[in-house]
């Protein structure tokens, strides 16, 4: 085969271009906007116009105003809960998938991932109609005699956001957990049996620890997607379901305070980056070779 020296010049230029693009695109579309936001967060607004003098005012306001920090914490707790519930539901589902044989396994996996292809807004509407006063959930609970009459417990509050986000994001948790479970060589499980372990012992000592990287990726995925979402809280949160995403969104809309919005975005970005780093740290396999 031809060595590097014989590759035509045009082809080499081509590959150089691809390389440059591969590095340039993330810089242009991710890092530059982030940098602009960071810059904006040090400006301020005076009577509807942006004042381009640097100050820490926005950050001081974020940390001292009694509104923002509590919402910030509540939102983080909410999203951690979403991540935890998603994991608890997705793990058994993913585990069940790996026990299926060949074709069934992937057919069912695809079925579980289909919601990812649907419009986000339509999914939220669908879930809202399930949770609403006349929705499926209430009808079922009343029908089973668990509730006397339809409850408003599931719409336009924090519960509604929690449930909706969980339903929306579960596929993002199933996939990484499934992949990490599927990567565990069967022979390790047989070796564990061979050494006298019971089925439960094999699961707790071999399967579970070896799938933790997938769990970590899933958790950080779900958390990051949940905390960045303002649409869901907007649509199902009502007045009491106030999240950080909604405050942030309002700064760019009704409040029209871009610099403060940018400062809030920076705070959010710090949490997101931290979550990604934590997920990455635990998502890495310690030693994959066997």
């Amino acid at each position, binding site marked *: 085969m031809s060595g590097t020296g014989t590759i035509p010049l045009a082809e080499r230029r081509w590959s150089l271009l691809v390389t440059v693009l591969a590095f340039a695109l993330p810089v242009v579309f991710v890092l530059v906007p982030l940098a602009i936001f960071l810059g904006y967060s040090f400006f301020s607004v005076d009577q509807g116009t942006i004042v381009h003098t640097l100050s820490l005012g926005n950050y001081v306001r974020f940390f001292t105003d009694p509104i923002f920090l509590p919402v910030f914490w509540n939102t983080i707790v909410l999203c951690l809960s979403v991540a935890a519930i998603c994991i608890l539901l997705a793990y058994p589902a993913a585990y069940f998938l790996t026990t299926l044989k060949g074709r069934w396994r992937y057919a069912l996996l695809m079925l579980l991932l289909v919601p990812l292809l649907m419009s986000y807004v339509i999914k939220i509407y669908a879930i809202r109609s399930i949770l609403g006063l006349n929705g499926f959930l209430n009808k079922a609970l009343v029908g089973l005699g668990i509730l006397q009459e339809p409850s408003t417990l599931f719409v336009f509050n924090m519960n509604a956001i929690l449930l909706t986000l969980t339903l929306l994001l579960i596929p993002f948790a199933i996939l990484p957990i499934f992949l990490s479970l599927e990567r565990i060589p069967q*022979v390790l499980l047989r070796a564990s049996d061979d*050494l006298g372990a019971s089925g439960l*012992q094999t699961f707790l000592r071999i399967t579970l620890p070896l799938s933790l990287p997938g769990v970590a990726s899933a958790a950080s995925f779900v958390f990051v997607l949940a905390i960045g979402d303002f649409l869901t809280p907007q649509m199902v949160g009502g007045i009491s379901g106030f999240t950080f995403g909604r405050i942030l969104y309002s700064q760019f809309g009704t409040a029209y305070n871009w610099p403060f919005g940018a400062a809030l975005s920076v705070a959010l970005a710090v949490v997101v980056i931290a979550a990604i780093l934590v997920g990455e740290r635990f998502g890495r396999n*310690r030693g994959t070779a066997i």
Partner: protein
Amino acid sequence: MNQNTDLLTLRSVSKSYGTVPVLHDIDLSIKDGEFLTVLGPSGSGKTTVLRLIGGLEPLTSGEIRLDGQDISRMPINRRPFNTVFQDYALFPHLTVSGNVGYGLSVRHVPRKEIARRVAEALELVQLGRFTDRFPAQLSGGQRQRVALARALICQPRLILLDEPLAALDLELRRQMQEFLKSIQREIKTTFLFVTHDQEEAIGMADRICVMQAGHIRQLGTPHELYYKPNCEFVARFFGENNLVAGKLGSVQGELRSIETALGRLVCSIRDQPHLKTATDGASAFAAFRPEALHLADAKDTENRFSGTIADMAFAGSSTVATITAGADHAGQRLRLRMPSRVDGSTLKSGATISLAFAPHEGHLVLA
């Protein structure tokens, strides 16, 4: 431990995957304390035998008895056997001591005792310094020894080893062969060792079980297999051999004649009653080892024929001549192995020579 009692017996064991038969009516007895090697080409069913005994796979029919008791349906985690897997199958998230202690810890042995026995086992396999490493940080030979220690520590009645040395390079493989053998002698546990490498089998085994296409072809000591193969497959597979086709002739005491393209040959049938009773004219092979073939001299009255040297190959301690013989010195290829000499061989390619082998060094196998 008594080498004469049977530890494990397989009785007409068959195994099919779906409708595909993989093992046909296997009968095998493993003696307590022996080093038994299962030898056969790839795909002959060696791993399957091991998996059936270990309990990783259910039997299709037949039974497996341990100390005379049927264990065919005993679950894998209750069988007093441990396996050293083909690719070691070490747990990547556990350290060396975590791996080695695993079998004790799932049986809720107290921590202190686990620590003591892990240290002992690692001492035995000479890995005392590596307790806190992860498998990914070990070399192939070290992983191998961790896998062995992990199996030994449970004090199984039988250790099953599936081509444990196949992934190692030649030098390391030699060392590990000796090492395994010496450990087996030390702990006196029964080893069932699978390999496709006949040199490895000769070097390590007390007895060898030769498998082909899901059948056991022969079971015996390396010496028996080498000098008294009971079929064409074993005669060809086990060590280098010369096979010459022919028709059986008359019996004279412990010898029997066979008519071949090299003329009438006479071979030993000692301790092989089935060759004595085989009908005259039955198809068979005369088999003689390359080292049994030599240049004929005045003492050789039987088994004399001539051939042409096609090739001479120096192979270190020995030199191998490839010879064409039979009608017109074509059609029958033979090998002659002789000790190498410092001033080279006097034999040259193209030379016609007279050859012979002693009747008691030839044997017969039925075709």
